[in-house]
């Protein structure tokens, strides 16, 4: 037996130069450019929410009727101390946009947290226990998912009245079925795949199976879903605000700003333009991020990346 060289040795034949490595990383970043961009956009929003007081030049609630409906700085009548102009009450639009990230992210984050936890519990129980429990839980899930979603959200919001907690609860509860469905699907898939069975036969207890075997596999699909759903909630929160059904009118939220701007659409279009752009920016970033996460985290899709 002549064991002179191994595979690793022959790699030395093809020496990697720095240019090669740079090219490799370049290709890597270029391939994932959507995800990188989405992550940056999302971080900008998170950053604005955390450091709102430091970033915004004015108190978002401070009115100044003398300077009301001032156009953005690049208009002839604009001034750089109000970069995005002012609204009908003379409040600084830039500062309100910056503070608006707080409402949007709060609703999105806690909404998804509640929906995710409720859905995880419901889906795991349905998938793990099966039988009658499964059919009852999935019956409710299918009921909610087959309803015209927006209509019912508007309906409940109108009944409960305007408050941040209400909005979070509405989204948290109405959105949980999607998480339940995905969780159940994954649990069923994992149960059918061999390794849970082999863990059972090796004497693993069921909390151990859930925490050691099932949950780690669930995290990828659930994080991806959470990204998309958070983006959707930010969207719907603004929509409710636009109809006057979200947080109280005094709170600087993008939806409330849009609702106010709608009245001055023809005379001062910037009042409605900037909150819309802010929603779009956030949503675009999160959708890019979600698409990327789906490609990277979903093991079934990993091989078929295009």
């Amino acid at each position, binding site marked *: *037996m*002549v064991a*002179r*060289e*191994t*595979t690793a040795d*022959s*790699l030395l*034949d*093809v020496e990697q130069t720095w240019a090669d490595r740079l090219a490799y990383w370049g*290709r890597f970043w270029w*391939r994932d450019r959507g995800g990188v961009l989405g992550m940056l956009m999302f971080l900008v929003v998170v950053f604005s929410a955390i450091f709102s007081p430091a970033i915004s030049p004015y108190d978002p609630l401070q009115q100044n009727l003398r300077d009301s409906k001032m156009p953005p700085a690049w208009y002839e009548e604009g001034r750089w101390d109000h970069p995005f102009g002012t609204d009908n009450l003379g409040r600084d639009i830039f500062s309100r946009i910056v503070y608006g990230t707080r409402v949007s992210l709060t609703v999105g984050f806690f909404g998804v947290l509640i929906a995710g936890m409720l859905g995880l519990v419901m889906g795991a129980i349905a998938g793990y226990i099966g039988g009658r429990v499964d059919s009852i839980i999935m019956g409710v899930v299918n009921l909610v998912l087959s309803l015209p979603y927006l209509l019912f959200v508007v309906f409940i919001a109108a009944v409960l009245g305007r408050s941040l907690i209400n909005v979070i609860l509405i989204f948290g509860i109405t959105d949980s079925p999607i998480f339940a469905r995905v969780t159940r699907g994954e649990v069923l898939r994992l149960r059918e795949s061999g390794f849970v069975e082999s863990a059972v036969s090796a004497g693993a207890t069921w909390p151990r199976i859930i925490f050691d075997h099932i949950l780690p596999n669930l995290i990828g699909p659930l994080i991806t879903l959470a990204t998309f759903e958070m983006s959707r909630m930010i969207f719907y929160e603004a929509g409710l605000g636009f109809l006057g059904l979200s947080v109280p009118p005094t709170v600087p939220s993008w939806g409330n700003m849009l609702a106010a701007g709608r009245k001055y659409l023809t005379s001062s279009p910037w009042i409605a333009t900037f909150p819309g752009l802010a929603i779009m920016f956030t949503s675009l970033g999160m959708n890019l991020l979600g698409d990327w996460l789906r490609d990277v985290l979903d093991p079934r899709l990993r091989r078929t990346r295009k």
Partner: protein
Amino acid sequence: MPTILEVNNLVTRFYTLDGVVHAVNGVSFHLEEGETLAIVGESGSGKSVTMMSILGLIPSPPGKIESGEAYLYDGYERRDLLKMSDAELREIRGGQIGFVFQDPISSLNPVLTIGEQIAESLVRHLGLSREEARDRTIELLDLVGIPDPKARYRNYPHQFSGGMRQRVMIAIAIACGPKIVIADEPTTALDVTIQAQIVELFLRLQKELGMAIIWITHDLAVVSGLADRVLVMYGGRVAEVAPVDDLYEQPRHPYTVGLLGALPRLDSRESRRLVSIQGAPPDLLIPLKHCPFAWRCEYAFDRCWEEIPTLQPAGLNRKVACFYDLERGKPRHD
């Protein structure tokens, strides 16, 4: 027998994000009229890619045929398949050369009737009318042993069993009376009993229709009762080619020895342990400067690490790419 297909020095590479995959590295062989040539090798040995390259079925990009010739003979005339236009190649595919693929479940279109899937080839190549194509299709279904072909014409693939679907695939392959049928692991996805039926069907069809068959497989056991000659591939190169009996009797390449050792033998007196070949197949991302089998070869010596062995004549009708003479038990001198 006259040659019908001659492949010279074929090189195919895939340009992927991970690097260049050297899938086929200078493969040469020929096929004679009416014979059955088995191409044997592990997955990744380049056997399927070789056949796909010849007929322009390599997805490009990332695949690229770098060099080589593939002559299709028609009497004294010969045409290079690799130099043909797409339109010319389409005339050949399905017309002069038929295909049977590995997985009959996924190889048929689930939303078209099997009749339609056979008939469209007839309409395309033989210019039959829809009615003629229909009648001919029913004959073909009968020929490949599908009971009640008239009723089955209208059925969809999911209404057939795996073995029956493979018969449909065979009907598609032979529909236009091809001179060559390329069968890419046609029995691998089937039950053992069904496998035997499909092999038998091929043999019967070959006797009746006289086409040459290229049978791609990783399983030497299937080959013995089927092939006239065997081509053994390793690492995108031809390791050895020989008439089937000679190959079994006296393999000339250490890799072939390994393949035969991995085979359970019913005719052997002494009970032998099944021998598996040690080590892993070569990484095709690395361009080699030595024998691709050297890592796994127990006979490898200095020269095997210094140059790539080329295919050399080694006895009647056979060739081998190895520097070591297994018969004499010492390095070959040439």
